[in-house]
């Protein structure tokens, strides 16, 4: 048995991070769960053929890729840099420091901020959420803990840059964001997932919005081809809290992503907007999900996708209204445009309503080609066809891009989109 333990991936991570025993126990339990769970059958993504190889974690830092280094250098607000599961840099702005905001590594937080950490870590995305949530809990390495005290309103965002350089082990980053009552925060995650080795990656973000606090969570992801990326981002709201998601995805790899708000508190709200540009041979499945539990909760999901090449992108908007969520209201709009005829798009709206007394429940979904009459109109003013198409697609994605919280983030998404549209 001793030899087996020496090769145990959990031990490798735990030893490298030198963390308290309680955390390693959580990992062990999660690993057992991970191994016992069957590979789930997803309707739109065949997981039987994907790799579940986790490799061997190494905490010795990889080189920070040049594009990432210059991106991080340009960030003026509070930020953290996580490379291959290792927190490399944390910068807290004067504003955030003055307001008592905490930004530390998720590993340090379990001792330095044990009380809040214990209350929420693993409570929003528990290990038994899915096979990949179990994997993340077992092997999580790299990520931050953000805590905003009562009433603190942050003007500038906090951004975490996650980098996977494609080294031969699973990336299982994990962060936890907690706002106390009446606090305001914009939290952002920008990912650089380089292509390369085939490993299974699982990223988790847990967000807890206490009473009447408000959080915008913005993400700019680019899962490049190579690994299999699972992403679970979930927020939970107390009474009158608001969580708004802004998701910009420009992947060409394989990813299964969940963006979810659990509207637990009465009168809480969530608005999710997703912009996806699939290209190459991307197989990306994004589920934006709202679970209404509290009374008079409100949600809206708006997903816009544009697809190039042989990309296969699935947008699912899922609204669940639990029994007791009296007076809940929700809207969904999904729209996908296939720029190239070789792409495949699925827009799947789902409404699961267990409460009779609901306010409104609208949904609209469409998949189509770019409108030829819009192209004609722009061309009739002298604009060449390729430019016209770019302008229209761009116009259709831009609201989400403009909602991103910083110039740096907007610019990186703009450059990712333009790179793919200009071809």
């Amino acid at each position, binding site marked *: 048995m001793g030899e087996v333990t020496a090769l145990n991936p959990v031990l490798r991570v735990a030893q490298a991070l030198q963390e308290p025993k309680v955390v390693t126990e959580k990992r062990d339990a999660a690993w057992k769960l991970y191994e016992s769970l069957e590979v789930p059958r997803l309707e739109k993504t065949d997981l039987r053929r994907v790799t579940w190889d986790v490799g061997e974690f190494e905490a010795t830092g990889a080189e920070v890729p040049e594009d990432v280094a210059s991106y991080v250098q340009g960030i003026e607000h509070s930020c953290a840099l996580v490379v291959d599961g290792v927190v490399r840099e944390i910068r807290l702005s004067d504003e955030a420091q003055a307001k008592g905001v905490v930004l530390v590594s998720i590993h340090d937080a379990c001792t330095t901020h044990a009380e809040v950490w214990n209350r929420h870590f693993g409570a929003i995305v528990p290990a038994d959420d899915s096979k990949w949530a179990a994997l993340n809990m077992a092997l999580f390495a790299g990520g931050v803990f953000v805590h905003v005290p009562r009433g603190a309103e942050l003007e500038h965002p906090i951004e975490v840059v996650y980098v996977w350089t494609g080294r031969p082990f699973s990336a299982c980053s994990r962060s936890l964001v907690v706002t106390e009552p009446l606090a305001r925060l914009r939290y952002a995650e920008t990912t650089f997932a380089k292509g390369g080795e085939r490993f299974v990656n699982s990223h988790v973000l847990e967000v807890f919005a206490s009473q009447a606090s408000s959080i915008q969570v913005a993400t700019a992801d680019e899962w490049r081809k190579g690994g299999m990326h699972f992403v679970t981002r979930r927020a939970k709201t107390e009474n009158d809290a608001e969580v708004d998601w802004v998701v910009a995805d420009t992947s060409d790899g394989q990813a299964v992503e969940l963006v979810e708000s659990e509207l637990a508190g009465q009168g809480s709200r969530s608005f999710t907007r997703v912009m996806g540009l699939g290209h190459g041979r991307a197989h990306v499945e994004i589920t934006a999900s709202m679970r209404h539990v509290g009374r008079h909760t409100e949600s809206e999901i708006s997903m816009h996708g544009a697809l190039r090449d042989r990309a296969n992108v699935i947008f699912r908007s899922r609204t669940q209204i639990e029994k007791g969520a009296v007076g809940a209201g929700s809207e969904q709009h999904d729209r996908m445009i296939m720029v190239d005829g070789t792409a495949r798009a699925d827009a799947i709206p789902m409404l699961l309503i267990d409460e009779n007394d609901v306010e409104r429940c609208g949904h609209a979904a469409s998949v189509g080609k770019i*409108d*030829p*009459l*819009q192209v*004609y*109109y*722009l*061309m*009739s*003013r*002298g*604009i*060449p*066809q390729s*430019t*016209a198409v770019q*302008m*229209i697609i*761009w*116009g*259709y*994605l*831009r*609201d989400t891009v403009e909602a991103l919280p910083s110039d740096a983030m907007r610019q990186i998404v703009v450059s990712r989109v333009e790179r793919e549209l200009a071809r």
Partner: protein
Amino acid sequence: MSKPDFVIRNLHVQVEGKEILKGVDLHIRGGEIHAIMGPNGTGKSTLASAIMGHPHYEVTEGEIWLDGQNVLEMSVDERARAGLFLAMQYPAEVPGVSNANFIRTALNARRGEGNEIPVLQFHRRLVQKMKELSIDPSFAERYLNEGFSGGEKKRNEILQMAMLEPRIAILDEIDSGLDIDALKIVANGVNQLRSDNIGFLIITHYQRLLNYIVPDVVHVMMQGRIVKSGDAKLAEELEAKGYDWLKQELGIEDETVEVEA
């Protein structure tokens, strides 16, 4: 620059396999204003769309020439860059593309690479033209035609025309849905552009607009053909006596494009 010279010969156009235009001839030179009048459903918009190269309209016979260039061999954007402009009856809405960005991109496409208009100069001109057309400055950053009222769309078409300075401008029912004040503003926009460097084709089924923009030639369209041409007086006559008078004179029973059963 020489005066624009625009010639249409024996134009036949089909929509969805149905022949709508059955031989149209026109000759418009710089400095001239031609009006095409006619009841609804007689093929006026079809003519405008076919000239611009709308994808639903297929030219089956005939020729279109602008300044000696064969228009039918050009793509839609090439036609525009050659100097054709169509103010559309139902312009498309394009969310996410601002009016100003659209017009600037169009103008620069027309001027060509290396000859782009400086941004400040562009905005000065845009603001000026918008003022002349009584368009609220906020419309520069509004998304193209999205949520515009009928009248706002019409004025926006005229704004684009004023900014792009075409050689041949076709205005399709630019007067429909406009109140008298808006009509005067639009007419004034057209009259300001009037010069030897531009020729106009104004499509309308009321004479009202022609009180403010006096045409040199008036054509009447019925059954997909020009059935009568004259000077400005013809429009007045039509206003006074109605189209029925002309139908009787020409022995036409149904003026619309016949559809074979």
